[in-house]
């Protein structure tokens, strides 16, 4: 049976494309090598929807950043993964940097980004009193926002599946063969897919997937970013995204302070090229770099408040820009090198890929039964008290708290499992259970019991994130006699 489209990779790019594709009457499958979607780069980044003025003009990145930014409001209205335009401040510490932020402002205005303003020291400190008094000025960009990128992935794919997408996880692609009739055969761990189009959204491995059809015209190298999460007690310490002035040579955005969608402050990322595409290590040098640099801008932040850290890899193509488009191999379309601002651009990239598919001859008949939304997920801890009482009366499992740090109830965890969570991380990234200050010290065993019960597996088969990430072992009983 012939598929119309096989999407390789369930990061935010593959997920966004999948969801847009299902607006049409198509047969499509998304294959993901990890056990859940969003478990690669999309899980471990800053979660920022950039304001729209950062990327240089004349690049795909620059074009898609602002377009993408504007698409997140309707997307969130449909899918409710959580998106807040909290705004950002880019801080200038000296006269040269004041010129830099003025240039950034002009760049944004040329593109049509609204609301950009240069704030003087006094106004900046009035808005963000915990910034260093040594700053001179800042560029305010109210269009910047934050999301939980993994929740965006989950919702996009959940919605795509409601509308007919097939999802195959823990299913790495092993080879792709162009057939004489112009179709492609995708060989995966779980079998063959015969298809008209392949979308290569394989993130840091996009070059290897392209090489499977003999395309060797680009290379993906990886830049690692380390990020550090701080105790929730610092919620509100800064209210906006805080950027240092970008480095005039590298254009790197530097070390940021990120008030995440859930209110937890995060600091990072570092940005260093690494050789190994599996290198997700954090380092003491990275930790020192983050906290040294961040305290220059926000002196009150301390490494003592760190509750967790992680590293993510950004897929960088030669030339630094996104690579999006058809290739010399008929039906094989690259969506590669999606580094920052890739998350911001994701909805715009998805729209662009739909246009490419149409241009390449895919008939796009509207799916009249397309459902744009997903069932609303209850976030019990965030509800007003009257609503809590009502829900608890209806279903006592909402009143049974499992994660005490983030106030996550038993029913929310069951909901997450019903929505597709298969692992501790799957539950964690859907509900925040285990993400707080105790890092699962108190609730891990309860969540394992719930996963085992719902999935009808032994507790010892519950994993952290699939593969060999087992958590506990059965005892070897009964081999001795008293």
């Amino acid at each position, binding site marked *: 049976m012939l598929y119309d489209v096989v999407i390789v990779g369930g990061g935010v790019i593959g997920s966004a494309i999948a969801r847009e594709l299902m607006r049409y009457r198509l047969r499509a499958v998304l294959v993901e090598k990890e056990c859940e979607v969003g478990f690669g780069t999309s899980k471990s980044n800053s979660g920022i929807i950039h304001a729209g003025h950062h990327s240089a003009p004349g690049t795909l990145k620059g074009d898609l950043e602002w377009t993408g930014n504007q698409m997140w409001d309707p997307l969130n209205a449909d899918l409710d993964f959580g998106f807040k335009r909290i705004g950002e401040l880019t801080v200038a510490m000296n006269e040269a940097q004041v010129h830099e932020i003025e240039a950034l402002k002009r760049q944004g205005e040329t593109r049509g980004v609204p609301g950009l303003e240069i704030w003087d020291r006094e106004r900046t400190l009035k808005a963000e009193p915990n910034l260093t008094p040594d700053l001179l000025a800042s560029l305010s960009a109210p269009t910047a926002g934050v999301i939980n990128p993994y929740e965006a992935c989950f919702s996009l794919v959940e919605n795509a599946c409601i509308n007919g997408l097939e999802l195959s996880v823990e299913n790495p692609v092993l080879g792709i063969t162009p057939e004489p009739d112009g179709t492609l055969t995708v060989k995966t761990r779980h079998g063959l897919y015969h298809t008209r189009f392949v979308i290569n959204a394989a993130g840091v491995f996009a070059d290897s997937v392209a090489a499977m059809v003999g395309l060797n015209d680009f290379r993906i190298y990886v830049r690692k970013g380390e990020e*550090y*999460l701080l105790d929730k007690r610092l919620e509100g310490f800064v209210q906006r995204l805080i950027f240092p002035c970008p480095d005039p040579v590298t254009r790197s955005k530097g070390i940021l302070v990120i008030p995440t969608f859930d209110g937890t402050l995060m600091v990072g990322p570092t940005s260093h090229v690494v050789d190994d595409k599996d290198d997700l*290590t954090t380092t003491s040098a990275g930790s020192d770099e983050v906290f040294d640099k961040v305290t220059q801008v926000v002196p009150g932040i301390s490494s003592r408040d760190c509750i967790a850290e992680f590293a993510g890899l950004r897929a960088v193509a030669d030339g630094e820009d996104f690579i999006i488009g058809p290739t010399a191999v008929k039906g094989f379309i690259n969506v590669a090198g999606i580094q920052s601002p890739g998350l911001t651009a994701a909805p715009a990239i998805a729209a662009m890929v739909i246009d490419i598919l149409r241009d390449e001859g895919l008939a796009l008949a509207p799916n009249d039964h397309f459902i744009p939304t997903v069932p609303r997920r209850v976030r019990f801890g965030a509800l007003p008290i009257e609503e809590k*009482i009502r829900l608890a009366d209806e279903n006592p499992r909402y009143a049974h708290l499992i994660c005490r740090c983030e106030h996550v109830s*038993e029913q929310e965890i069951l909901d997450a499992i019903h929505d597709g969570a298969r692992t501790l991380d799957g539950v964690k990234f859907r509900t925040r259970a285990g993400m707080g200050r105790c890092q699962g010290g108190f609730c*891990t065993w309860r969540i394992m019991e719930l996963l085992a019960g719902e999935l009808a597996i032994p507790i010892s088969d519950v*994993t*952290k994130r699939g593969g060999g990430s087992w958590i506990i*072992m059965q*005892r070897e009983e009964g081999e001795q006699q008293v």
Partner: protein
Amino acid sequence: MITGKLSHLEQHYDVVVVGGGPAGMAAAVGARDAGAEKILIVDREKEAGGILWQCIHPGFGLHHFKEELTGPEYAQRYLASVMDKGVDVVTGAFVFDADRDRRIQLTSGQHGIRVIDSKALVLGMGARERTRGAIRIPGTRPAGVLTAGLAQKFVNMMGFLPGKRVVILGSGDIGLIMARRLTLEGVEVVGVFEIMPHANGLNRNIVQCLHDFDIPLHLSTTVAHIHGRDRVEKVTVAPVDAALRPIMEKSWDIDCDTLLLSIGLLPENELSRQLGISLDPVTSGPVVSSRMETSMPGVFACGNVVHIHDLVDFVSQESYLAGTNAGEFVTGKRRPADNVRLVPGENVRYCVPHTISTDREHTVYMRVRQPLEKCLIRLGDVYQKKLLYVFPAEMVNLTIRPRFLEQFHGDALRVDVVPRDT
């Protein structure tokens, strides 16, 4: 017998105790003995008793019950006296908000969301374990890095093992005790690594949990890197320099599938922060008077939520006092207010309570910064007492009697622990 479900939850209580561990249980008994009538303990687990249930080893109760008990025996005996005194215990219930009128909001699968008024509130939420993030161990983020207390829950209550070959970071008592537990369950414990130049646990545990099983203890050594994508595959350990930074040239790798962390406890004061009571940055717990009353009248605190204890018997003692004062707050017979502030001086990290009164006897708990042998504890220039030794890992307790302070007329009393020749 061991409580399960409370069928009916009142709307008004004399005393509400948040937390049913050793602190909360003792506070409830204290409140009853002081005359409070309607007392409620709220516990978030499925049974009250706290962490004692999983501490199956002996070493508890020598002060309180005058015999050596295991943790579960201590919990069960104490809980029996709580029940005998007619205290209401609601389990599986979490207090998610409290206000200065001592009204609490709790959520429970059995009772739903409830708002309960109390005349006096006792905070006994205990502590949580420090995690990997707190010390930012570099490396990957595989499964198999867990706190010693979670491993203890898996092994002693649920009957699972955390791995086959384990490295333990931190020589606190929980880590040492888990080294023995795992060994007795057939798990290989490769070694215990302690960043400080001295062990943090009791000598009894060094001998009976490590020496008995030939488990090496590496002092001034830490875990410098964690390896493994899905599951821990090995750790790099390294000796540390004077600034406690690992010396990587001297590092070595150890194959293992599990890293247990026993790197300390942190008081759980989220509710205290919501209430807006004053916290001591050194203890991370509430500032308390000799009545164990926080900066908010009628709100009391005790146990690990105030400061980290090393013996449950002292938690019971301190918490019974907190409960007594909560009961007296309700019945209106208050002890006189404090008139002297204790000021931690040389080699003293903190004192609890933070203030005392010169008209009655007090037990003051404190921790020192540096170990000393043959030393003196000094209260200003009015009293001193010889001590054979002090260690940071062992809480010092001192009874201050009114007669010690007859010659004292100030309002701030400095406490020093110094060598005898100074």
